[in-house]
Structures are given as structure tokens and as C-alpha cells.
């Protein structure tokens, strides 16, 4: 019996589901090359370099030819600042969450201490409650704390504490930690303590053992945890939505704002770049994981 035999029904269903998954993304990318500015319908591909005839009498200079909307994107200050914010938040929160989460995984897997059960349980909370509940909670915490501090310290005007990049970063660290911890913990579960014991027997102290034995062995887990945290942060909408303030707009928040107003193919160009970045990250993640096994 051929173990890889699948019925025609399964094959047809698979093709249809993949089509369902990819049709919207392909449509998004096609419209990034739209020659119509309103983006309500597809006006054909942009085919020439130089002056570009939009609908009506509008003529736009397009030195980038078919990639007009991509060039346009780099001219958009809001997009550039949102990109900067998104990357800043993702980098800082990923590094922090990876360090903190790896420490927690080591603690939970290698040591016994008080509150161990509670700690492990608390890591599952973000998975079993809706994101909006967590977002609302953090918003309530910050707004009440800031209200209290502003009035009791008498802060006025620009010195008032408000929501902004720091509150977003702290919240992103909080929701990333459980994911890093669970990934690294899974990695630690898989490997033999005897390597560490051997290193200790050979005279290495705990620190040397960690850096020369434990860390190299869990590194793939740490890296995939970090990449997971990075993509979660890049991708996050809900928590950011409730913890962000003026000047701390991220790309998902910016796109959401646009969708409620006017949409140009710029949004599609932005989405296309985003999809390409994501493909690269997922590819990397898979390479790391397949090397693990």
C-alpha cells in the first residue's frame, strides 16, 4: 500500500483551499501595479516610464515605471515614520522578550522554586484570553496610572505622561515572553541533561557550562523564539491599537487608518513589500527549525 496515496477528493479540496488562501494576496499584489489612482477598479498595469496618465487629466511623473507606487511609498513621510516606529518596537521588544523568555524557560525546565506552577500557568493566560481583553487591561492600567501621576505630580502640557512608544514596547514585551518561553522550553525538554553533567564533571563551572554547552544546544530554539517574537510584534494590531499614542503609529495602525478613508495603490505596494519580508522571515524560521530536527 502506498502510504502517500490521497483520494482525488482530498486533492481537489486542497487545491481549492490553497486558492482561497492565496487569491486575496495575489489580488493585492496585482493592484500594486495598478495604473488607476483610486484603486477601486483595475485600470491595467503601468507599462511606461516617465509621465503617467491617470484618469481625467492628471499626469504623474513616474521615473520608476511599473514600480511607481513603490517609489511613491518612499516619498510618504507617514509611511516612513510608521516603518521606523514598527521596526524600533519590534527590535527592542524582541531582544528583551528573547532574553527574559529564555531565562524563564531555563528556570522552569532546570530549577525548582516557589511559584513555579503559578509562573507556568501565567504564561498560558495570553493564549486563552482574547487579545482585546489584554489590550483593554493594559490601556486601563496605563491610563489610570498616568491620570493619577499627572494629577498628583502636577504635570501639565508636554510633560504629562501619555501613551506612546514606551507603552507599546512594554506591552509587546509582555505578550511576546510566553511565546519565546514555550518555544525554548520545548527545545530544552528534548535534550539530555547528561551533557551538562559531563561538562561539570570535567571541571567547568555553571557559567562556562551554560555558555559552552547549554546555550549552543538551545540556540536554534532561542532563534526561532526570537523570530516568532519579531513577527508577532511586526504583525500586532490589537495590543498596539490600545497602547499607542500620538507619534507612535505603527504600520498596521497606519494602514487601518487609511482603510477608513481613501485607498490608493500605495497601500498595495506597502502590502506587497510586507508579504515579501514575511516570506523571507518564514523561510528563515523554517530553515532553522528543519536544521533542528
Amino acid at each position, binding site marked *: 500500500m502506498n502510504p502517500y496515496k490521497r483520494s482525488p477528493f482530498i486533492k481537489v479540496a486542497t487545491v481549492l483551499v490553497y486558492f482561497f488562501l492565496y487569491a486575496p494576496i495575489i489580488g493585492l499584489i496585482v493592484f500594486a501595479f495598478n495604473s488607476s489612482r483610486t484603486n477601486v477598479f483595475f485600470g491595467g498595469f503601468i507599462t511606461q516610464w516617465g509621465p503617467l496618465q491617470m484618469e481625467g487629466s492628471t499626469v504623474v511623473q513616474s521615473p520608476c515605471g511599473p514600480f511607481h507606487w513603490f517609489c511613491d511609498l518612499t516619498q510618504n513621510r507617514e509611511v516612513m515614520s510608521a516603518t521606523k516606529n514598527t521596526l524600533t518596537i519590534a527590535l527592542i521588544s524582541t531582544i528583551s522578550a528573547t532574553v527574559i523568555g529564555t531565562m524563564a524557560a531555563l528556570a522552569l525546565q532546570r530549577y525548582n522554586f516557589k511559584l513555579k506552577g503559578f509562573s507556568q500557568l501565567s504564561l498560558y493566560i495570553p493564549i486563552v484570553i482574547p487579545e482585546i481583553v489584554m489590550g483593554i487591561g*493594559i490601556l486601563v492600567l496605563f491610563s489610570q496610572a498616568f491620570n493619577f501621576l499627572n494629577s498628583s505630580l502636577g504635570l501639565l502640557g508636554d510633560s504629562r505622561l501619555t501613551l506612546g512608544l514606551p507603552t507599546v514596547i512594554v506591552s509587546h514585551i509582555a505578550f511576546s515572553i510566553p511565546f519565546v*518561553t514555550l518555544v525554548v522550553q520545548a527545545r530544552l525538554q528534548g535534550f539530555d541533561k547528561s551533557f551538562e553533567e559531563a561538562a561539570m564533571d570535567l571541571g567547568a563551572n555553571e557559567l562556562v557550562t551554560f555558555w559552552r554547552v547549554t546555550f549552543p544546544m538551545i540556540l536554534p530554539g532561542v532563534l526561532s523564539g526570537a523570530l516568532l517574537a519579531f513577527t508577532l510584534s511586526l504583525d500586532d494590531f490589537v495590543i498596539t491599537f490600545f497602547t499607542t499614542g500620538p507619534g507612535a503609529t505603527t504600520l498596521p495602525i497606519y494602514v487601518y487608518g487609511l482603510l477608513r478613508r481613501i485607498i490608493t495603490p500605495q497601500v498595495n505596494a506597502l502590502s506587497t513589500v510586507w508579504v515579501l519580508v514575511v516570506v523571507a522571515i518564514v523561510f528563515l524560521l*523554517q530553515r532553522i527549525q528543519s536544521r533542528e530536527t
Partner: protein
Amino acid sequence: MLKRLRENKSSQGTLLITPTLIFMVGLLIIPLLLTLIISFGRRSADGNVIYTFGLHNYIRILGISTACEGGQSLCFDPLYANILRRSLALAFNSTVLVILLAYPLAYFIARAHPKRRNTFLFMVLVPLWTNFVIRVYAWMMLLRTQGVINSVLGWLAGLVGIPFAPFEMLYTPGAVLVGMVYEFLPFMILPIFTSLEKIDNSLYEAAADLGANPIRTFLRVTLPLSMPGVVAGTILVFIPVMGTFIVSDLLGGRQVILIGNLIQRQFLDARDPTFGSAASLILMAMTLIVTFFYTRKFGFGEEIVAA
């Protein structure tokens, strides 16, 4: 000596877990408790919170009203109860649809040649990691009256020569359902795949040797053994569908108001954070109750972590 070493180990463990505990308590547990405290409070005239203790917000959500038209002292106002019911129904429908779509694909990948499995999984991960908001936007473009689907249908109708009136698809409950299914489908595919992949091939052979036809094999072998994946996937889909507000906001317009939208609006437009907090806790309670009974019935697998 040994005792000291063990104590030392314990203090090292405490040291390593402390930062995580600070974040989990400070940004998860304290905020939840604060939400609970606020939900008993009242809104002041300037939109701030007055700390009191009353169940008025909960009574309001459940629909018990004192402002009745007929002059009775108490009556039922179904406004919020309807929102809760609609959210539950949508979450249920989306989850069922997602299972129906995810299962064949997960089965296909699990029984693909090991060399190609990673490629097929990669193809599931790309839409999953494409930004949530961007994916909703993609559906706005497809479903719009002048959008892609209507254009393609119109073109096809033109080819055959039948008159075509574009469908109104955007800003309908159906659009929200499709959007939810699309957003959360990968969360079901991955855990089902994980549990299907574990099934030993010899089980299929044994079933075939004992004379079971493919349908019987599926019902008696494959399906029961893949249930942990379906359970994990259901939790991963049901919980976020209950709480999401962007999909209904952008694809449902004003037609479809879910509990997520209700909560968001209470905070966004500085309406009533105390009422929003109560709604948020009701949402949490509903998801926890459903998850609890569901996992107690079907068990709780490690698949949830694998995804």
C-alpha cells in the same frame, strides 16, 4: 553541602523567573484585576472613572432595563444580549467552516512525501504571517461592488452574453464570516496537521487488512486520532474570532456589531470605560467557559503549543 546547593539552585531559579513574573503580573494580572474593579465603577461627566461598587454595567449588558416604555419598573432590552448572541453564533459558524476547510488540507500535507511537506507548510505560513489588517484589506478589494469578484463575474457573464448586475457583498454579515474564516484558517490547519502527522502508517495498513473501506478507516482511525488537533485548533480559532473587531469593522460596516466592536467603541470615543471593562470581562468569561467545557469533553493536547 547538598542542602545548600539545592537552596542555591532554588534562588537561581527565582532569579531567572523574576523578570517574566514582573511582566506577567504587572501587564496581565494587575490589568485584569483593574478591569474588574473599574467594571463596578461609574463614568464621570468628563469621561473619567468614579470608583464605586455596583453591578449596573453587568445588569445593562444582560439587558435588564429600568427605563421602560410601557411604564413597568423592569423590562428586557435585548440590544447587548443580541450582540453577545451574534458574536457567539459567528464564532461557532466560523469555527465549523474553518474545520471543514482545514481538515482536507491538513490531511493532504500530513500524507505528502516528507520532502515536500515543508514546502506545503510554508505555503500555509505565508498567509498566516501576512499582516492581519492587510488581509482584511485584500477582502475589501475582492468583495467591493466594483471589486475583483464582481469584475471577473461581469467579464464571464459578458463572454456568455448574459446580463449581469454586480452583487452587494461588502458590508454584509456574509463578508464578516468569510473574513473570519480566512483570517483564522491557518490556526486550524497547523494543529490538525501536527496530530495527523503522528498517526503511524501501520494503523492505516491494519485497518485496510482488516477489511475497512476508506470511509470506515477515516471514521474509526483517522478522525479519533486527530481529535486533539481539532480541539487545539478550535480553541485557537474560537477565542480570537470572539474578540476580533477589525474584521467586522472593515467588512461588516455598521451592519455587524460584535462584542469586540462594542468594547472598542466604549474606549475609543471616550464613552464609558467602566461599561467597556464589564463587556471585556464578559467576553473573557464566555471564552473561558466555552474553552473549559470543550477541553474537558475532548481533552487538551500539546498541539496548541506546536502551532
